Structures are given as structure tokens and as C-alpha cells.
């Protein structure tokens, strides 16, 4: 009966168990409360509204495009950080991770300063092409990329680092160029980590609120993503906000589970 017999190291100390249980409650109770408080009979009607369909579609679209950009830009940057030795690498990594700790609203202000209609880059761009990022769907994508890219870069860099560089060495002795090695050895070995990084980036994009609303405002069908919609809806209709939030929860968890089965297994188990 006594735990000390079952566990030769002794029972788990209360000083660890109590905070651990509190942590679980803190994470689970709000979500459970949200599920419990939902007006289930009224839910279908809530979900059929036009603003929700538009906002959900916009969120999924912009997050997916943003993650594609994160892949195209972040994969090479992660490789540079993981595999090249150069002066200032630590500084570069620090610069890349700043948006990770930056309050999203500040990110929005920074984006306005750079890409706003009178911004350092935004003004010449507007003069040259007539296109401006703010208050457009591309502006939403830009904000998403800005906040998600650091997550993607840091987690892919970690994946590259945990793929033994000796495999790169073996590939070189077999006559492979660095590009061939990257394509046929480094990336396949890091694939689970790359997928995890992209899922993380996608989830970060999907939930992005501060930078998006600061940089792009909140125009239905153009810049109104799900978090924006939930925020404005909550001011007038608490039940509707709850329903929308539930949709976000289901989408997030669903995507995470789907990708987990497909991509996040062990490298040896894939075929």
C-alpha cells in the first residue's frame, strides 16, 4: 500500500505535486468553463452568420499564406544559424528572436513605422506601385509573418542542430554539394522538427490579434480575422463571442491533432 514500496525513490514530494496540479487546473478550467457555458442549442445559428464565415476563412487563409512565407524565408535562415560559422551569429539570432518577446501591439506599431503609408519602406512602395500594406489582407499576412517567423526559425534551427552534422560530412565525401546535402539529407532528417515549427507558426498566426488590429484595423472580409471578430462581438454579444471562441478552439486542436498523426511521429516510422 505504501508508495515507498512501489517507488524505490520514495513518493513524489507535495512541494512539486501541489503546484503541478494547480498548473493543470489553471490551463484546463478556463477552456472547460467555456465549453460548459456555451449555448449549445443556439450554436448552429450563431455559426451560420456571414461575419463568422468570412472571418474564419480569412484567418485560415492568412495564417496558411503566412506559414508558407515562414517556410520559404525561415528554413534558409534557420540553416544559416545552425550550420554556418560567422562573426555576429549570436547577435543575429538575438535580433531574429526579438519579435518573439515583443508585445504584439508594439509589433503593430513597428510595422506601421516601416510599412505604413508614410513609413520608411511603405511610402516609396506606395509611390512606386500604388500598393500599401496597411488595412489590406496582405497587411494581415505581413503582421502574421512578422510575429510567427521567429517561432518558425528558432524551432527549425533546433531541428537542424539536432540532426547530426556528421551526416552532412558523409554526404560531402559522397560528392554532394551543400545544396544537395541540404535537400536530400539535412531537411529530411529535420522534417519532424520542421513540421512542428510550422504548426507552431500557424497556430501563432491564427491567434494573432494585437499586431494585426494595430497595423490593419478591423474591416470585415479584408482584415477582420477571428480574434478581431471575437473582440468586437464580445462588446455587444457575450454568447456569440463564446460560440466564436469555441470554433477557434476546435479548429486549433483539430489541426494540431491532424498534423500530429501525420507529421510528428518518429522519423523511422514514416514511409
Amino acid at each position, binding site marked *: 500500500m505504501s508508495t515507498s514500496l512501489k517507488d524505490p525513490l520514495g513518493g513524489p514530494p507535495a512541494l512539486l505535486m501541489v503546484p503541478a496540479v494547480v498548473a493543470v487546473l489553471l490551463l484546463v478550467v478556463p477552456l472547460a468553463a467555456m465549453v460548459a457555458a456555451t449555448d449549445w442549442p443556439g450554436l448552429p445559428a450563431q455559426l451560420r452568420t456571414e461575419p463568422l464565415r468570412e472571418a474564419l476563412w480569412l484567418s485560415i487563409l492568412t495564417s496558411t499564406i503566412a506559414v508558407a512565407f515562414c517556410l520559404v524565408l525561415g528554413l534558409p535562415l534557420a540553416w544559416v544559424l545552425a550550420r554556418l560559422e560567422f562573426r555576429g551569429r549570436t547577435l543575429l539570432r538575438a535580433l531574429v528572436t526579438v519579435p518573439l518577446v515583443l508585445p504584439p501591439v508594439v509589433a503593430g506599431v513597428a510595422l506601421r513605422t516601416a510599412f505604413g503609408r508614410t513609413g520608411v519602406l511603405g511610402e516609396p512602395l506606395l509611390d512606386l506601385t500604388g500598393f500599401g500594406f496597411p488595412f489590406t489582407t496582405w497587411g494581415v499576412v505581413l503582421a502574421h509573418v512578422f510575429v510567427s517567423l521567429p517561432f518558425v526559425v528558432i524551432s527549425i534551427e533546433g531541428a537542424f542542430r539536432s540532426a*547530426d552534422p*556528421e*551526416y552532412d*560530412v*558523409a*554526404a*560531402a*565525401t*559522397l*560528392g*554532394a*554539394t551543400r545544396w*544537395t546535402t541540404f535537400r*536530400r*539529407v539535412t531537411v*529530411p*532528417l529535420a*522534417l519532424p522538427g520542421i513540421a512542428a515549427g510550422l504548426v507552431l507558426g500557424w497556430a501563432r498566426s491564427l491567434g494573432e490579434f494585437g499586431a494585426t488590429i494595430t497595423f490593419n484595423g478591423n474591416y470585415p472580409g479584408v482584415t477582420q480575422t477571428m480574434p478581431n471578430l471575437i473582440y468586437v462581438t464580445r462588446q455587444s454579444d457575450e454568447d456569440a463571442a463564446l460560440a466564436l471562441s469555441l470554433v477557434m478552439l476546435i479548429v486549433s486542436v483539430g489541426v494540431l491533432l491532424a498534423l500530429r498523426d501525420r507529421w510528428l511521429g518518429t*522519423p*523511422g516510422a*514514416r514511409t
Partner: protein
Amino acid sequence: MTGLEVDLTVPGRVTAAFTAEPGSVLAIIGPNGAGKSTLVRALAGLLPAEGRAVVGGTDLLSIPARERQVGMVFQGQLLFPHLSAVDNVAFGPRSRGVPRADADRAAQAWLDRLGIGELAARRPQQLSGGQAQRVAIARALVSEPRLLLLDEPFTGLDVKVAMALRIELGRHLAAYDGVTLLVTHHALDALTIADHVLVLDEGEVAQIGTPSEVSQRPRTEHVARLVGLNVVREERTLTAFTPEAVAVSLDEPVGSPRLRWRGAVVDVSPHGDAVRVLVHATPDLIADVTPAAATELGLVPGREVWLSVKETAVRRYAIDPDPPGTVAP
């Protein structure tokens, strides 16, 4: 195919000059940290080195690793875990621009030759140590390398598997017309497979010669220890004798006045059916005694003993005035 002419330095780590005939196998032995792996990695282009390493008129040191066409079998194989055996072998040819179908065919042919053709579709983690080692050898040989480098190829394998693979590798190396460098810490590899043995010690060539020369006439105590012999230096003469020829006694031995030493036992360890005793004398010597004798004499570390060897059991030879580094034909 042509031979290999090496005269290179990896600053602070290894300096070596030697030549090897086409089709020959040169074993590189030496204690840990002697620079064995450094030497082959420099030849493969994985470490910067000064000097030259010429094969067929090309100085390898002047071209990048991927253009050297050097086959390398790594310690621990380093097969790509995400590729099947046949894709691992075909990786080299495909990287060098051979069309996929041709590369696959060549890879399959090599796997067949090594007797693992039916395992072509398996991933490295589904192969035994010996099978994986065969794939690694096929991967190194499939591109017909100018030079074959084997870095401790039998390390980590089961003793029986290693023995079978040693014999098999010897056969394949006999068919390979380029130079093979085999890094090993195992004297047996050097003696069974190699035509010549190069002994590295503290980053320098201590001796180079045929396996029988090196094993019978080691030039330094280090070399002697590696091949399991005792050597005693007297001016320009070296005296070599086997550990079995050494008699151990507690009292001063009678007769044979010259060849006897007194010292303390440093280490006692099993060695085959015998017990190997390391004695700290001038110089350090090893003696093999029966387990019964070891018990009777009370051979434990710290025990003072006398060692002696009969005049008829030793081999004397002059220290070769030639510097090491040239392989005698």
C-alpha cells in the same frame, strides 16, 4: 589506378609522409589521440591540411572534399537513417550526376556483391551492425573512388561479426585497385588485412613497414605494446621478446645474468587463457603467466617481482638508420 603519395601536416595534430602502392592496404595503427582519424579526415577533405596528397597526378589537398572522389567508411557508419540501403549506396553516384536508374542499378549490384541484395529496401535501423557495415562499404566503393578510407570499420561490432567481416573485407579490398587506408586500434586488422602498417604516435609516424616487420621488430615501446611485444633498447640495438617468454619469480633468478629486471606489478588482467602482468621496471614490461602461477606468486599490483627471459627467446636488431616514412617493397 595509381599509388598514393602523402606528405601532409594538420597543424598541431598530425604530420605524416608516406607512399602506398596501387592496390595495397595500409593499416594506420596507434594509441588513442595519435592522430589516426585526423590523418584520414584530412585526406577526405574534412579538415584543413598543409602539404600534398597525390593520387594519379591529382593533389587531393588542392580540391574540396566533394570533388576528391574518396570513398570513406566512418566510425559508426553514418548511413542516412531516412534512406533505404539501396538509396544510401546510390546517394554518391546520384550526387555526382548519374541518372537515377543507373545509380540504383549500380547500388543494387554492390549490395548483391556484398551478399545483402535482398535487404536493399530496408532502412539502416532495420539492419544488424554487420549488415549496416556492408552497406557502408558498398556506399564507399560504388563510385570507384581514387582512394578508400576506412575509419575504425569494425568498432562496435560483435566480435564474431567483426571477424567474418574482416575476412570478407579483405577479399573485396583485394579486388579494389586503388589504395586503401585502414584506421584501426586492433593489431589483428593490421595483421590480417594490411600489406603495410603505419604506426602513428603523438601525431608522428613512429614506424612503417610490413605487418611482420612491425610485429616482429617494433621500433618503439609504443609500437611494441600495440603489437603485444616487449622491446628493450640498448644503445643502437633493440631486443624484442614475447610476453610468453618472460619468466616471473619472487627470488632473483639464477643464470642468464643480462636479461633480468626487478620491478613492481602495476596491472594484472586476463589475456586469453593466460594472465597478463604489467611490471613497472626499466622499461615497463609485460609477462604472460598461467592463472595458477599468478595465484601461487600472489601477483597483485604493488608486488615486487623479478622478470627474466632466456637468451634464445629474444630477437635483436639494429635501430634502422633510415627515417620512417618510406614503404619498403
